[in-house]
């Protein structure tokens, strides 16, 4: 029973009523576990970043801007080292991969959501997901021993016929060996790993295209392609961008396949067909075992890892923001 207060109401002020919720123990445990899980993920991320920063701080401090402007990496040999070549080359490989993967993934996602019969759709969807489950080591071996001997001919053809474009220009491009271990070949292999990531994200977003608007377009006499063009694609634009960025994040960090294929090179350049490229993750994989006895070399690699961590985190953060926005259907409100 509530006891009415005898004092005037004005005295109580505009204090909102405090709502006290009494939860049962099961509810409290569940909330605790859920909250703990969420906090643990963030904490773990923070610890990883903190560890990388802590370990690499003295190297970054000692080298200063030289770490960002030096192209060579001779840390284990007591020479200069920096990420001015490795970081751009990492992006070059990732961009080649994205340029190849995104059109393929877009078309695949459209086919899965709009064109494929229901039975085939389920089969193909799980096949695409399975592609993501193949270990990158397998892609690397396959790329090195099967794809590269064939792709060098494609590279040579591109260079011979489109060599006036700086991307396809190769100096001394007479022998096939000038086209091996290039950004292009590494990018093609990485694109195989990016396709399933992009396809999955895009497929989910395309599947959310509002049925009413699709039927409206059909009722106005649109063809299937017309529906895709006027409803599905505009609605899924955010998802496409998000999927692309997620794929980029994957491509930036790909290690073992790139390590197999590349021939280390320490000069950023436009030509993607020429022999020699590099990536931060490959740099760490190749140098780590012989750098552990030298603290500067070891922590230099960790500093390179920190750079990759920050870049990948940034890319993924942008991606998830875009994906989250597109889920609300914001991009259809033109």
């Amino acid at each position, binding site marked *: 029973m509530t006891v009415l207060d005898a004092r005037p109401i004005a005295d109580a002020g505009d204090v909102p009523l405090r709502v006290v919720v009494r939860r049962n123990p099961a509810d409290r445990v569940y909330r605790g576990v859920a909250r703990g899980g969420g906090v643990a993920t963030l904490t773990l991320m923070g610890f990883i970043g903190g560890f990388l920063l802590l370990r690499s701080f*003295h*190297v970054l401090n*000692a*080298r200063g801007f030289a770490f960002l402007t030096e192209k*060579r990496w*001779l*840390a*284990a*040999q*007591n*020479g*200069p*080292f920096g990420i001015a070549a490795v970081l751009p080359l990492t992006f070059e490989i990732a961009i080649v991969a994205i340029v190849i993967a995104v059109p393929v993934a877009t078309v695949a996602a459209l086919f899965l959501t709009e064109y494929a019969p229901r*039975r085939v759709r*389920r*089969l193909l969807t*799980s*096949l695409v997901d*399975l592609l993501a*489950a*193949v270990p990158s080591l*397998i892609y690397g*071996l*396959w790329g*090195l*021993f*099967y794809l*590269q*001997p064939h792709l*060098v001919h494609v590279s040579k053809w591109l260079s011979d016929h489109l060599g006036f474009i700086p991307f396809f220009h190769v100096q*001394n491009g007479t*022998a*096939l*060996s000038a*086209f*091996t*271990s290039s950004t292009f070949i590494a990018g093609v292999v990485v694109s195989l790993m990016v396709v399933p990531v992009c396809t999955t994200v895009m497929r989910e977003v395309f599947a959310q295209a509002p049925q009413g608007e699709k039927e409206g377009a059909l009722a106005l006499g649109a063809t299937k392609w017309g529906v895709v063009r006027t409803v599905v694609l505009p609605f899924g634009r955010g998802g496409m961008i998000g999927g692309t960025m997620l794929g980029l994040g994957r491509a930036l960090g790909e290690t073992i396949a790139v*390590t*197999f294929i*590349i*021939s*280390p*090179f*320490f000069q950023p350049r436009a030509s993607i067909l020429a*022999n*020699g490229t590099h990536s931060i993750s490959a740099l760490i*994989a*190749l*140098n*780590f*075992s*012989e*750098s*552990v*006895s*030298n*603290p*500067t*070399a070891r922590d230099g690699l960790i500093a390179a890892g920190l750079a990759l961590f920050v870049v990948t985190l940034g890319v993924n953060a942008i991606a998830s923001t875009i994906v989250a926005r597109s889920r609300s259907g914001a991009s259809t409100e033109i």
Partner: protein
Amino acid sequence: MTRFRRTTTRLFAAFGIAVIGVLPLMARPAAADVILTGAGSTWSAIATQQWIADVARQGLSINFNANGSSAGRVYYYSKTSDFAISEIPFQQAYKTPDGETVNEIANAAGRPYTYLPIVAGGTSFMYHLDVGGQRVTNLRLKPLTLAQIFTGVITDWSDARISADNGGRKFPSLHITPVTRSDGSGTSAQFSAFMANQTGAVWTAFCHKVGIPDNPCPPTSLYPQFTGSVQQSGSLGVSSYVSAGYGQGSIGYVEYGYALEKGFPVASILNHAGYYAQPTAHNVAIALQGASFNADNTQNLSGVYNFNDSRAYPVSSYSYMIAPITTAAPFTAEKGTVLSKFILYFLCAGQQEAERLGYSPLPKVLVENGFAANNKIPGHVAPPAINQCNNPTITGNFITGAAPPPPPGSNQNDPPAGVPPGGGTTNTTIGNGGGNGGGNGGGNGTTGSGNRNGNTTTTIAGSGGGGGGSGNGTAGNPAGLLDNGGGTNTQNAASGQPISIHRSSGPVPVLLYVIAVLLILLVVSAPPLLAMVLRQRAEDEARRS
């Protein structure tokens, strides 16, 4: 809800019982045996793992982690492993570019150690050079020429310095692609140690060019990248690159076994006695007889590189085991006994397997050094008398009898055996070539046996070396080259090596890889697909009924 809770409780209980049941099983082996742990060199890992498997049958438990020489040394002084295997000894104090001082010797001072030889081998130089459709198999190189190729000084196969090493034979103009290791590697360390010792000026100039400041430049496990070179990870990466179709014009350094496996030729290197030698197990063991030791038992390979035997292969070396000589933690006398038994096995009987595994047996001088080191290990087992050591270089006639004499045409003053006439010249050149190769006639007479292509004699080819001077006109005369096709194989027959040249070796492994990938895909994809089909069928039936 209650049912769910009951099920969960049961599951937890079952899990708990399982854990309690499994724990003693997991704990038992650790308590019963002495387990020795080692870490280090990937270069010697194949032999080390084989020997560990051999002694496991005698009840010795050894775990070896092939994580690289540097990591092996760090594991040793950070007390993570009992012993280490490394191509290079603990490094003396040096300053990193950031002013930090690294002193591995001081770091390891808490665990006194000794070095002892474990695995020997030669660094071979596998190359891919076709002239007019014929693969060159008798390339000869001086150490200086070799160093100049791998430091970017010589960049074309038609270079006069290469011709000079090959009896004047001029190769066609083709870019040389030196293939080096992109990952940290003992092979890089051993090759750069050879260059630093024998061609120090070239090596140091190279270091300065790529940005390594040291003077003189020390050997390195991470070979610097330079313009015109290609780097690949792993010996398999290097040998695959050189043997691939696009590897034309390339030369890479690998362990000899990788070149044999690909069926590709390796360069003969000039030794101190004035002969060009191949990196066979015999020739490496012969060269290693010249090994001497510094005061701390580290290797001094000058005597190996300069060993004065006509058969010695100069680019030979061995890797170390770093073994503790006190019982500082984590080592104990019981572990010392296990380690000592292992050492005595691999120094003697284990070396029987060295050649098969792609290495070379340790010669007597290194075995004796290993015995002396063994005696410093706490809890050691006494070594056998040296003549009881069942090592092929001691009880066998590996060095004295079985090692073939240098094949004809390997003396630096002779033209190389089996050189086809310079590309584009006709058969008549052969006759004219005698001028340079005249002194070699007698030697060539002995080589003809075992010629694969059925060509009868190599005398023609041998004297043809003199004709190499007649220019590098490219393959204008296929007939002439075909006639001399046998000549390219002759050198293999002469030096007794089973290098078989089958050029179609490429597609077979590739096909295997494709099949392997398909199989894996099948294994991964079959169960979910099957499940899906079954579910589909069940749904259809449900709908129908």
